[in-house]
């Protein structure tokens, strides 16, 4: 077949054709049963739990945060287990890599297993490096699961209101809102362009891959720019004067959640204090 035109019909069936590797988490948040809990409270919970877990000098508190956040996401927020596990695979890979690096390259204490010395690096596992790797892995997972709890229960749109309540500059908030809106438009465009390219035999060899990918990127940039000019027109014709209005959020004003979150965070602080004393 001439002209470098290849059809790839023999790919494995399980292989996904999408160029996006991740699920976008916002879909889960919109249908979450905890969506109506005020976003500020969930944000405080997420950040405070992460900070306390990171401050912990030993592994127990991060593990406790990890387990309680998984419980909250699966049982309280009713995220399907299969989706939750698939969400965890990406951070699992990154987190394990990070921990393995610490495990092998840091030292100190008694050597448990000595591998080899290569180009000045002493590759070994010591009791201190094992502890450090486990601690960092636990902290990372506690942080990730707290972040996931926030993202699967809170649509990004409710977080914009929090940004405004803490008085961030209006330009920053408007910019963030517009970026958020257009991310989904452009993801759609990118998928369309990618499909069209695959239909015409793009991405078959590495060289084709480079040229098709740069064409996709260029077209996406040109289309985004044109879209930007359209938005300017539509904003102007709706009398944009430097402030975008946010729709009122339908949240429950009950103090119940605030009390639960306060109690949980206090428990974490008590455990942290105990860990530091003992």
């Amino acid at each position, binding site marked *: 077949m001439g002209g470098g035109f290849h059809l790839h019909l023999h790919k494995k069936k399980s292989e996904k054709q999408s160029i996006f590797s*991740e699920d*976008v*988490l916002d879909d889960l948040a919109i249908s979450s049963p905890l969506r109506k809990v005020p976003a500020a409270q969930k944000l405080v919970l997420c*950040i405070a739990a*992460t*900070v306390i877990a*990171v401050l912990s000098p030993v592994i127990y508190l*991060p593990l406790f945060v990890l387990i309680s956040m998984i419980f909250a996401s699966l049982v309280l927020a009713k995220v399907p287990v299969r989706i939750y596990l698939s*969400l965890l695979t*990406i*951070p699992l890979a*990154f*987190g394990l890599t*990070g921990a393995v*690096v*610490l495990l092998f*390259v*840091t030292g*100190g204490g008694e050597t448990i297993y000595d591998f080899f010395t290569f180009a*000045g*690096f002493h590759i070994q596992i010591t009791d201190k490096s094992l502890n*450090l790797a486990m601690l*960092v892995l636990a902290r*990372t*997972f506690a*942080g990730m699961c707290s*972040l996931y709890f926030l*993202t699967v229960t809170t649509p*990004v749109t409710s977080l914009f209101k929090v940004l405004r309540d803490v008085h961030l*500059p209006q*330009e*920053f908030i*408007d*910019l963030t809102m*517009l*970026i958020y809106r*257009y*991310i989904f438009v*452009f*993801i759609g465009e*990118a998928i369309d362009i990618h499909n069209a390219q695959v239909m015409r035999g793009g991405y078959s060899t590495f060289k084709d*891959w*480079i*040229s098709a*990918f*740069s*064409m*996709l990127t*260029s077209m996406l*940039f*040109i289309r*985004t*720019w044109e879209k*930007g*000019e359209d*938005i*300017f027109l539509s*904003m*102007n014709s709706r009398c944009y004067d*430097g402030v975008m209005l946010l729709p009122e959020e339908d949240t429950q004003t009950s103090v119940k959640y605030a009390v639960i979150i306060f109690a949980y965070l206090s428990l974490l602080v008590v455990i942290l204090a105990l860990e530091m004393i003992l």
Partner: protein
Amino acid sequence: MHIMEGYLPMEWCIVWFVLSIPFIIVGLWQMKKLIDKDQKVLPLMAVCGAFVFVLSALKIPSVTGSCSHPTGTGLSASFFGPFVTAVLGTIVLIFQALLLAHGGLTTLGANAFSMAIFGPLVAWGVFVALRKAGLGLGLCVGVTAAVANLVTYTVTSFQLALAFPIDGSIVAAFTAFGTIFAVTQIPLAIIEGIICALVAKFIVRVKPEILKSLGIIEDAEIAKIQGEAA
């Protein structure tokens, strides 16, 4: 190169936040001046931010068999300059944490410093210098993108080394982290450089007005690049 949520000790999270915030404030201030002058800037910045996000969420294959993602900040730095990139990059990092679980909220300062601030700043310097030297747009954008990627990776290795020194030695830790990440990052930087060079040339061929309005290309060079294609 995102540092994950919870990976850095708290004192380093705070240090990198403190270092990043002044740049973001300057960026916001510059952006506000631009917006006051021309209201069109806001929607254009917004679509560019969304573009950087989408670009950074696209998969590109890397040699190790895994998938990697372009950073997009090099392209942004050459087109819009370092301070606007600092603001856009930080917003993109927030969305990456919230929507894709790349990076995190406590490590936002560190990630913003390496990816949205320091990398683009150095890359922009390189871009301006290369353009002054009279090199072609494609080559300049390509080198800039690769430099942004490599500087970001160096800064991240440095951040990790500061947080986790090996037997008290930051240099040893930096060499260790740097060597490990070099395996994926150096090929990635080269691929991103090639792609961004092709992207810049393609845009000049199809819609040179955009780049002209950003003030990074003149009519003579547009004609030259368009002539090459014909």
